[in-house]
């Protein structure tokens, strides 16, 4: 019995002295137990990429890039904030824009986590450079998305680990944002090698983004666009930089190239086609929205309420899931295409068919509410789930970037006419610099329609109100149309976001 006493007292002493109130996480990963290995860092990198897969970012690509322009119409009953984007009445409490804003920062925060933690880990130098290079690119791309949409934004440059870090300073001006993007991309460019993986950035992607960034600044300056006109950059230098980096994409690598076949660019089963410098990786075998793509459903008519057939680019009938018919091709925009332009004849449709090829609905008979784009088509769809990846950076985008940057040189004309030729159009020639650039921009409008580019092209050339009837109707000036307002929740809660 005395032993019991000794045991009890002993136990007491041991438990009291060994007591450590620090908590060890169980069953979930945390700052405490993560980033310990290269595998951890790779998983964290993929987590950063995955921010682009969420509907809130993913829908934003077209909701921001195409919907506010003359190219795209919206289902009249669609809500959730996009209805005010299409008619240029969006305020700072617009849900779709607030979501797009937040999800850019989710990608940034995840990238910041990788950058901050991997920098100091004792990993192999090659691993470190590979991981950091991609993380810098993710961060740069996210800021590029933000700056083109909202202009000056809060600069969140470290992993948010305390409440005190949730009040980041606004960038002073566009220079600060763009310098940050360029610095990240330059670092990434030096770290990465050419190594294609669908859904991921490699060295060529950093060149491509750099060229787009420089072109945006250059043209913003040249066209005196709001925000850009105050930047301490020289337009010509910027065009030269844009030409330099896009030139590297065109000439210094062989992994990516110009796809001579328009159809194969949009073949969902060819993500490794030469055009695709960066796509968001999605696959129909996923379970959650974001793992799979619903982009085709945004375009496809509801039809009979079940799957039907459409004529694909080469004229064959392919089966497709029916959709929500949210986006429609603006008929006036369609009429701007040359009647032989394959980008209209092969990639836009207004009729749906049954298995035998009988028409079951068309724009004419009113059973299809509008013309729809078939750039996103997945004949192997599984219900709502498709593999139709958003085309983020195509080789053609960079070829036209180059052409716009260098102007009507022989190389410039060569690339512009390559694109026209593929679409079945005659070559152009004999244009002065300004007209040439207009021709390139016009070509971009046709070529890259519904791929999330057009609004940014209009903004950097200060032509939103001049081009978009809805923006005119809303009574906006070019300066007012240049950027969306910082979302209300940010302004409300971030004391520095004023």
């Amino acid at each position, binding site marked *: 019995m005395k032993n019991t006493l000794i045991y009890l007292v002993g136990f007491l002493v041991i438990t009291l002295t060994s007591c450590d109130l620090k908590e060890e996480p169980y069953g979930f990963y945390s700052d405490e137990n993560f980033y310990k290995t290269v595998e951890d860092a790779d998983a964290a990198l993929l987590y950063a990429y995955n921010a682009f897969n969420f509907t809130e970012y993913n829908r934003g690509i077209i909701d921001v890039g195409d919907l506010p322009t003359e190219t795209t119409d919206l289902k009249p009953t669609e809500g959730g904030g996009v209805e005010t984007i299409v008619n240029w009445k969006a305020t700072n409490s617009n849900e779709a824009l607030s979501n797009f804003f937040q999800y850019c920062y989710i990608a940034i925060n995840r990238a910041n986590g990788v950058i901050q933690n991997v920098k100091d880990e004792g990993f192999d130098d090659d691993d470190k450079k590979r991981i950091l290079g991609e993380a810098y690119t993710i961060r740069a791309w996210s800021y590029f998305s933000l700056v083109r949409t909202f202009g000056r934004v*809060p600069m969140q440059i470290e992993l948010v680990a305390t409440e005190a870090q949730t*009040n980041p300073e606004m960038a002073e001006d566009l220079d600060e944002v763009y310098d940050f993007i360029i610095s990240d991309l330059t670092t990434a460019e030096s770290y990465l090698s050419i190594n294609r993986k669908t859904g991921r950035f490699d060295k060529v992607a950093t060149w491509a983004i750099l060229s787009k960034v420089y072109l945006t600044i250059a043209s913003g300056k040249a066209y005196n666009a709001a925000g850009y006109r105050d930047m301490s950059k020289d337009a010509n230098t910027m065009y030269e930089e844009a030409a330099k980096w896009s030139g590297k994409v065109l000439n210094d690598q062989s992994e990516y190239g110009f796809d001579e076949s328009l159809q194969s660019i949009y073949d969902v089963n060819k993500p490794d086609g030469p055009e695709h410098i960066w796509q968001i990786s999605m696959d129909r075998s996923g379970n959650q929205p974001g793992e799979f793509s619903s982009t085709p459903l945004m375009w496809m008519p509801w039809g009979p309420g079940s799957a039907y057939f459409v004529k694909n680019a080469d004229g064959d009938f392919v089966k497709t899931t029916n959709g929500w018919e949210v986006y429609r091709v603006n008929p006036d925009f369609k009429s701007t295409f040359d009647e032989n332009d394959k980008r209209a004849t092969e990639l836009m449709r207004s009729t749906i068919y049954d298995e035998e090829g009988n028409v079951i609905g068309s724009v004419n008979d009113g059973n299809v509410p509008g013309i729809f784009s078939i750039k996103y088509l997945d004949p192997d769809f599984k219900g709502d789930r498709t593999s139709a990846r958003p085309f983020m950076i195509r080789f053609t985008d960079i070829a036209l970037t180059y052409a716009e940057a260098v102007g009507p040189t022989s190389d410039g004309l060569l690339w512009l006419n390559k694109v026209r030729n593929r679409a079945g159009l005659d070559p152009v020639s004999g244009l002065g610099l300004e007209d040439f650039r207009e021709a390139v921009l016009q070509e971009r409008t046709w070529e890259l329609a519904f791929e999330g580019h057009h609004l940014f092209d209009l903004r950097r050339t200060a032509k939103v109100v001049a081009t978009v009837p809805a923006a005119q109707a809303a009574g906006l000036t070019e300066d007012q149309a240049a950027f969306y307002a910082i979302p209300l*929740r940010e302004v409300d809660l971030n004391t520095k976001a004023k």
Partner: protein
Amino acid sequence: MKKLNAFGAVKIFMLFLMCSQAVLGQEKTITGKINDISGAPLPGVNVLEIGTKNGVVSDFDGEFSIKIETSPKEAVLSFSYIGFKTIQVAIDEKDHIEVTLEEDLVGLDEVVVVGYGSVKKSDLTGSVASVKVEELSSIPSNSIDKMLQGRVAGLQVINSSQDPGAGATIRIRGASSFNGSNDPLVVVDGFPLGGAGNLKQINPSDIASVEVLKDASAAAIYGSRGANGVIMITTKRAKAGKTTIEVRHQTTVKDFTSNLISWDDPLLMAQLANERSINDGIEPVYTGRTIAGVYYPSVYEIESGSWPHNTDWGDVVFRGSPILTSTTVSMRGANETTSFNIGANYLSDDGVYIEDGYEKYILNLGVSYQFNDRLKFTTSNILSRDVRKNNSGLEYWRNPLWPIYDENGDYFRTSEEDFGHPLPYTENVLNESKGLDIISSYLLDYSVSDHLNVKTQLNYKYGNSISDRYMPKEYTWEGYFYDGVGEIKNWQNHDLLSETFATYTNTFNERHKLDVMVGSSYQNNVTRTSDLRAEGFVNEALQNENMSAGDPESNKIGNGKQESQLLSFYGRLNYGLNDKYLFTATMRADGSSKFGENNKWGYFPSGAISWKAHKEKFIEDLGIFQELKARASYGISGNQGISPYQTLSRYGIENFYDDGQWKTAIGPGYVSGQYGPDYRYKYWSGIPNKDLKWESTAQLNVGLDMAFFNSRLRTTVDFYSKETNDLLRQKYLPLSSSYTRIWVNDGTVKNKGVEVSVEGNIVNAENFSFSSNLVVSVNKNEVVDLGNSQAAGLLRDPNTGMDFEFRGEGFSGFGMATANIYGIGQPLNVFYGYKTDGIIQSEAEGLAAGLTGDLAQPGEFKYVDLNKDGTIDEKDRTVIGDPNPDLIASLGLDFTYKKFDLSIFLNGVYGNDVFYPGKFDQANEMPFRWTNDNPNNDYPKLMATRDTKLSDWFVEDGSFLRIQNLTFGYNFDKDDTSFFTKARLYINATNLYTFSNFNGYDPEVGLDGIYWGGYPRLRNLTLGVDLTF
């Protein structure tokens, strides 16, 4: 336990003194016998020679023998025993004396258990209420918690569930936390077991006393867990004396207090259903047509009897008379060195639904061993096993036109997707959980000296439960959808407490009484869970017995663990001057692993003073008061609110399709929930808050204890004001943070109230006694602050400017509107919605009221255009009801006549509102609908689809007065039979009758005031017998 330990310690102390002073000699030995009034010997009585430290304790037969030190002429002996009046008897040179002790009705010298010790009731400085446990013993119950309803001022007990084995909601002095627990802490024999509500492991028959610590002075000693008050439970222990065996048995028959409201007349049901459709321009249902494969007979077929079915589903679904039985056998005994108690309890409780039930077995064993005069070891062990077979929720509201069986003798189902038939559900669904709990404690009690005592104890609690579920393909929606669903859920909890505290007691110069306690404790709590789920069973014969028989691709597994640690240091100082002025100061420091890194330690001080005015000459001279004691206390206690790991960063896991294959992606931020239309938006959580800490409650209490008329009338009055700060809430973050919300300490809630209890021994004659007990409490609570209105995402009432937030789920019947809000300046959970002013009688009236379209038609609700802007919209909403009662009261009346006793207990709640969302769907309300022939101002017309707004039409007064208990008993004693020492036979009725204006069955609903419908409340009739051998 504490009470008895203290008592035991005194005994040892006495024995010790006796031994050590025996040598001083010249003594004379006095013998004697001590009886109670009935003549039964009283063992364990303290016998003390006045003016000396000489004392003994009476033996099993009530006999004692003491060697006196003073001269036989002057010697005076004092006899004291808990629950009896202390008397002094002069020896007067006698050798043998017979002493009769009277029971102390006043109870001022009763010892009351407080945290880490006990104190004489008369020396209390804080607000502590004792429950007379013996009064509860006739009430059948699974746990003590439910039985406390109405027994203590300021304690609110809500029994909203009638399921067997269900717990209750317990609040002391109102609710004060939004996201933390509001349950009082339950401490059993010194072991803090967690939140009150369902203390099923302790057999109510084994409980010796229950104390409720209400104010900060009493509860702050429990530091970060004391903010909601503390319920101290002490279990029965053997007393010295002969071995006793007790057998208690109760059989309870339950029945509904009112008839089930159902469509006794299916013709009327069909007619009204058709009227509903016709009013809305929809083709009526009961026209002899087939809709989605279901044939609906026409009104003519029903009327003519060619559709003969009229099933009383209530009859099919409910048991005729569910029975609860509880049997306890216990044995207690003790000798000089060892005492033991052993008990077994079996309880079986039928649910009101067929095949629904609860069973529980408890075994307990306690042993106490006295090593020597100074050292004592005590252990107690409880083993409890329970089984819940759940078959609740069957559809007693099923359409009476559907027969039970079809023409082939199979169960009649309207279609393949008709999962409502209660019988195949009952026969095929498995839904069972089995629990096992072990509570063990080991205590060493060491008296270092006459003044210093050290106790060290080790408590351990183990809980385990396994839930089995199988949802078959054919008869359940879930099983149909997933091709059969099998589940096994495991839950396991370990709770270890190690505690040591020392108490120093001494009196200096006969006027300074000092009592100091210091101690420390360490508690470690670990919960582990694992869940298995399989779907797609080809063969269902094994149910969930072989989970690998499901489709492997749809298997789901989950597991979790939560661990928390609490390290505490605490102390208390009691100082009494002249037995008139009492001071108490307590302090506790809690270090909790749950708290954020920067706030690991919390400090909880309290202080109290008390003045026994009745000991002052000038009060004594008034001759009015036997007690007049004023008390005041102030202190701070906490609520741990936070769950483990809430202060840490947390990463999420997602899948990324990386270059042709799925890979796991991990990183900062995870989705903690979804919100918005179709739950399309995500809450991003996982940002750590290293500053996160306890919610803290500062409480001021002022009280007065009085006793008059020779202590036959006793009153206690308390006023309190409680302010809870640092409420644990989620605050929105800027979008650029990438997180949606963060847990912070933000916001304030106040509770203020008055508690009065009056006890009277009104008649105390030889054969007849009558006593009464009235308890009244009033609590007002108010949401004072919810933090920054933008950061908190608060809404603003356009008419009053009140900031508020909705809480709870939306109601589909009201366009997903939510009923309850937290509004600044309002009590918790007030209802928010539209006001109505009767029913629209003409379209012109509807249009004038600001309504348009369908809602402006005659027979619709006439909503009030509150802001007078000519339209009815969401800006016309306001606070339309308050679920918090203005007053809670209870009255106990106890009579004894010779060997009979009768007690009546009434319990009432006044001034609360109840929200009754299903009010217009009931068979007893619908027939009163508005029609062209019967226009009225009380009920709207029937409409198949209507944009019904959440309005005060659905809010009713929830006040009620209930005859909660009535017990009638007969006590046999030795004269009646020599076989038993004592025997008692009684009948008890619980929930005998309720007075209320509420239109539903019963207005006793949860704290949010929402009445979910259901079936009538049950009345319990119990026949019980207690035998003591």
